[in-house]
């Protein structure tokens, strides 16, 4: 899997360099700048996750996000996703860690989709553009979309049964 990822990236980069050297160099510069800009946040998330997972007993984590209370976890994840504001560049690495800790794809799907589509904290900004009614409706529809997507994700990863 990892090898595939590296090979694909290398191949694309090679093609890019054959087609246009200057543009490709620029792509690498963009990649580096993006990385540097987000790096402090990365480190912070890594620190927080290391601490939380070290101090929280495994049983507690399992109970919070485990198998028994699947739907409760999904809805909790959707609510947390709705009220948090986090750049995806931080959210996905975080989800990657949680995935390895045994959190289900379904729960992470609910979290990431609401994180991006439903904005409780962005509500005032959205209202300024669209008015209260449209903003409420769009966010409600998005929440439903996120829950449906999570359910289907669970289905495909065999987490529903």
């Amino acid at each position, binding site marked *: *899997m990892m090898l595939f*990822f590296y090979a694909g*990236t290398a191949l*694309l*980069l090679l093609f*890019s360099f054959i087609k246009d050297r200057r*543009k*490709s160099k*620029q*792509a*690498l510069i*963009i*990649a*580096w700048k*993006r*990385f540097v800009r987000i790096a*402090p*946040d990365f*480190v*912070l998330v890594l*620190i927080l*996750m*290391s601490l939380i*997972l*070290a*101090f929280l007993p495994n049983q507690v984590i399992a109970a919070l996000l485990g198998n028994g209370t699947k739907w409760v976890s999904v809805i909790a994840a959707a609510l947390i996703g709705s009220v948090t504001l986090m750049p*995806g*560049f931080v959210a*996905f*690495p975080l*989800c*990657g*860690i949680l995935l390895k800790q045994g959190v289900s*794809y379904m729960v*992470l*799907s609910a979290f990431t*989709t609401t994180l*991006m*589509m439903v*904005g409780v904290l*962005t509500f*005032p*900004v959205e209202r*300024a*553009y*669209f*008015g209260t*009614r*449209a903003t409420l*409706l*769009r966010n409600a*529809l*998005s929440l*439903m*979309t996120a829950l*449906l*997507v999570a359910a*289907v*994700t669970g289905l495909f*990863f065999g987490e529903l049964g």
Partner: protein
Amino acid sequence: MRRGKMKLAAAVLFFLFLGVSFIKGFYPGLEAGRNFRLFTLDMLKILPCAFILIGLFEVWVKKETVEKHLGEGSLFMGYVWAFILAGTTVGGLYVAFPVSYSLYRKGAKLSVIFAYISASAVFRVPMAIFEASFMGLKFTAIRFLVSLPLILFSSILLGRYLKKKDLRIEDGENSLKKEKNR
């Protein structure tokens, strides 16, 4: 800048804590150190490729060329271009709102605009590269393929209903400023 200093302070504190835990043999501290090492190594395996792919995408696909096509052709093509434009949007909802205002001014349909907003939350290509790197291609593919029809459906619904209600999209930046001045 001050936020940057706070982050630095947090990191320094963390490493001090790790150091003390190591000397004293404080178990949770050792555990945290092990977690940190594992997570960081994992991250370093994935990040270089993810960022290089994002860089390549941004160099080869220009937003302006996509914007030109919006509003051209049939309604169906309107949705297609809305999705493509969303794919090239950087920065999520905060950027999508002002863009949708300018789309509205240029005469785009309400339903197309709502499709654009939702899609720019879910389908941004740089974000998707990142997502797939950490969560696997299957996860990302499912999320995209399931939310695409749902977004289309709810945008059409929302567009129709709000058109009846005579929705006007305001220049939010202005009204926010006014509110602040009051």
